[in-house]
């Protein structure tokens, strides 16, 4: 019975994290982006510095009419947001927060599971792009597909490098095996992983698939109300997942000074810092062109990923 309770508690915790953390990231983005641009950002909703802005947004989204264009493929159109959102919920359960089983559910092939499931989310964007019967959406869907194709591989390579270093692909196992000198050792891999992850999430500067100045909002152009909100939630959940994964794989998860019983705090702090970097990059850099995107992936990130694998392999065999 206690086993069942344990599972239920973990499920609830994962669901709460899934619903709260993206909102926190979103609100932070509002404020950080504003201040980086010399503005204040939301100041009214909720009273203190507009802390409830995203709650207000959510209420607004829920009240908006759900428009399905006449020419759209109705069912695929309506299903697409769920397809793009759910993979991130699934991934969240495998990410370890602290030592001694402080994880939704340890999975033996955790790293592999996470990468595989995250790749599925892109199907949602492609479905949305096709089913909207809109030219902008179709282009956005195509660009999404092309971007996934280009950036999934560097992610795989960089993750493979960490798996080599740790000798396991279980996420808690990888953090267990972590030593501080992994950070310089896996630095290139970490950068490749984070960059490729940003591109897979279509975050600026890799937001060509939703480039508003060219194709309105890409695959999400026709969406309104709740379904649009789910797409947005998927994007921010994706940021949380990417940052948490980078933390776990490359920054040593719960390891840190004085990490005795506050290991989980280190994970959260590192994840939050990475999320800040995601926002920071968005504010700082202009959007890459489609050909620059592809070129960056194939001629910079993939060779770097391969080099990192070679480096990891050699060092690992030498020290063992």
């Amino acid at each position, binding site marked *: 019975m206690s086993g069942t309770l344990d599972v239920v508690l973990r499920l609830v915790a994962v669901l709460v994290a899934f619903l709260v953390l993206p909102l926190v990231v979103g609100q932070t983005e509002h404020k950080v982006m504003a201040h980086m641009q010399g503005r204040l950002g939301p100041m009214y909703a909720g009273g203190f510095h507009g802390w409830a802005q995203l709650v207000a947004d959510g209420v607004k989204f829920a009240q908006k009419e759900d428009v399905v264009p006449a*020419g759209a493929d109705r069912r695929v159109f309506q299903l697409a947001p769920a397809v793009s959102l*759910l993979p991130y919920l699934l991934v969240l359960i495998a990410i370890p927060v602290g030592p001694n089983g402080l994880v939704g559910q340890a999975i033996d092939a955790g790293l592999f599971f996470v990468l595989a499931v995250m790749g599925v989310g892109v199907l949602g964007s492609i479905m949305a792009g096709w089913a909207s019967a*809109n*030219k902008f959406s179709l282009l956005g869907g195509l660009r999404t597909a092309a971007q996934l194709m280009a950036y999934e591989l560097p992610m795989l390579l960089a993750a493979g490098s960490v798996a080599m270093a740790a000798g396991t692909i279980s996420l808690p196992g990888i953090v267990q095996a972590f030593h501080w000198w992994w950070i310089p050792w896996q630095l290139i891999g970490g950068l490749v992983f984070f960059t490729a992850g940003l591109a897979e999430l279509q975050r600026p500067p890799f937001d060509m698939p939703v480039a508003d100045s060219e194709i309105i909002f890409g695959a999400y152009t026709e969406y309104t109300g709740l379904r649009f909100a789910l797409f947005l939630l998927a994007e921010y959940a994706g940021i949380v997942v990417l940052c948490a994964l980078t933390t776990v794989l490359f920054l040593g998860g719960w390891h840190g000074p004085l990490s005795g019983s506050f290991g989980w705090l280190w994970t959260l702090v590192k994840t939050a810092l990475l999320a800040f970097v995601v926002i920071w990059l968005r504010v700082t850099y202009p959007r890459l062109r489609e050909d620059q995107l*592809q070129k960056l992936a194939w001629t910079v990130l993939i060779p770097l990923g391969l080099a990192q694998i070679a480096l990891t392999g050699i060092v690992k065999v030498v020290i063992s």
Partner: protein
Amino acid sequence: MATVASADAVGGVRGAADAYLAAGYYHAYSVVGLVAVVGVLFVAVAFAAGHLLRPVVPTREKMLTYECGVDPVGEGWAQTQIRYYVYSFLYVIFAVDAIYLFPWATVFAAPGFGGTTLVEMFVFIGFLAVGLLYAWKKGVLEWT
């Protein structure tokens, strides 16, 4: 189905490879399955609640495809030459290659494998790199 505390599963992973028992395995994936069910329920509840909350006032204008306020001309599909299609071929091939990194990564440093296995993988990756270099030289990775 036996339930094993996940801490044991972690311990199993860190210990000998074969200590990872199928019971723990099924437990782990049944939890993953539960999360999937919870997720589907969440989306279903959200959509149902949205259905109750939102107005439904469709008009012909509103249902038009959005093209910046201009009436849409033609259908969404038009034949264009999209060059990054070649990239997707590249990706599928390279992804199949990259998959093999993972089982290799878990064993290559174990006793009984070591340098030989490293060389084997380097040969494998070498072919991969040659392919990438070929694509590069052929101008596939160039846009113009």
